[in-house]
């Protein structure tokens, strides 16, 4: 950085401003730089190192800044009823032969469609003891997804995860429309009989917000990159968006279970 001697001569700067276009280089005699620094000599150290330093500092500072802002690192509260670190909610007999998993976002329209088209079949298979169903709430559409999943977990604390889950999907508004306010989430709770002080506090304070964000990040690391993602015995089912597709996958996973 001690290359002050390469600073442009003022008269050269003046000429340059007067002739900004890239005309033919002036003859070497017009430039005072030594032969060794012939061409680069017109650049000040600021112009050589400044941008490079700026880039590096920006990237390093940016990584540190975002690491401090990123949420999934610390989940203070884990809902006691969630299924371990993967955070699923279980419906049905834990010893049913086939495991069906759904990763869903309460704001995702296709999840809402799945709820209408396929979920009744899921319920029937659960009732028949043929499958156990895990719902993994993840939240990637927006802050309202986090708030909704948090409220569903709070409902789960009082044994009403599924009632609340069903209601959230039945009541679904367009993505990030601002419909899922705290008041709305509390009102949905009242509709399924959730009136406790604890539920209201958990919804208002976002007790499980960080847990939801962490579950979302872990799901993404496991390759769940869209919702709904449906797996049958751990295998992703691509045509599980119809009841027939899901039934076929369940039958294939357990041929004797018919």
């Amino acid at each position, binding site marked *: 950085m001690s290359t002050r001697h390469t600073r442009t001569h003022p008269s050269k700067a003046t000429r340059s401003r007067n002739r*900004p*276009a890239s005309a033919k280089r002036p003859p070497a005699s017009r430039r005072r730089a030594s032969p060794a620094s012939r061409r680069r000599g017109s650049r000040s150290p600021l*112009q050589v190192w400044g941008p490079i330093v700026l880039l590096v500092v920006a990237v390093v500072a*940016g990584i540190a800044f975002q690491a401090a802002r990123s949420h*999934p690192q610390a989940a203070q509260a884990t809902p006691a009823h969630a299924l371990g670190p993967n955070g699923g909610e279980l419906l049905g007999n834990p010893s049913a032969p086939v495991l069906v998993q759904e990763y869903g976002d309460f704001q995702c329209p296709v999840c809402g469609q799945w709820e209408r088209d396929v979920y009744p079949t899921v319920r029937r298979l659960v009732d028949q003891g043929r499958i156990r169903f895990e719902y993994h709430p993840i939240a990637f559409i927006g802050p309202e997804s986090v708030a909704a999943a948090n409220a569903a977990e709070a409902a789960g604390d009082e044994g009403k995860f599924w009632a609340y889950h069903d209601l959230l999907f039945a009541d679904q508004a367009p993505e990030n429309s601002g419909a899922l306010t705290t008041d709305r989430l509390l009102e949905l709770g009242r509709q399924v009989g959730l009136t406790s002080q604890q539920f209201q506090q958990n919804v208002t304070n976002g007790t499980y917000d960080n847990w939801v964000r962490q579950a979302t990040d872990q799901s993404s690391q496991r390759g769940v*990159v869209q919702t709904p993602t449906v797996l049958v015995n751990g295998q992703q089912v691509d045509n599980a968006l119809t009841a027939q597709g899901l039934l076929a996958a369940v039958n294939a996973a357990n041929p004797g279970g018919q």
Partner: protein
Amino acid sequence: MEDVSNRPPHQFAQKRGTVSTGDPAEPAPPGSGGRSWQPWAATTARLLLAGVWAWAALAKISDPDAAVRAVRAYQLLPEALVRPVAWGLPFAELALAVLLAVGLATRLAAAGSAVLLALFMVAIAAAWARGLQIDCGCFGGGGAAIGVQASDYLLELVRDTGLLVVAALLAWRPQSRLSLDSQLGSEEP
């Protein structure tokens, strides 16, 4: 009377024409550096690229968690690199935006822009070739998406190609008006 009424629109048209001739998509023949429109075209290119980078950067910076998922969805980087790239890349974009906006180290910033755009195009093409259905996350968001079609990838690649051409031309002829480079007196060709 006729002359006076005709003049302003004529001048206006001429001015617009000058700017549009300066479209950086039209490479100037070598030795045409004396053309007065060229530094202004470079300024236009600088501001265009700066705007795109700033927009892309701020959209990604606003949601660090979404940025991580967007990078991960490409399935190109090992998990250990996903976070540093997702969090650092937008700030590199922001730095490029600042350099281009003020016109400092224009050639370096333009070349850096071209390299970054080329890398993005490789990543998008790789996602397309492997049949991934992802939103590029170019301007925030990202990750898997329902109903992504070939035309979506193609559009992203065409857009990036256009920006790449602008960046490459700017790196070739970085002299521009309203730039710190010209204030500092460096007219490096």
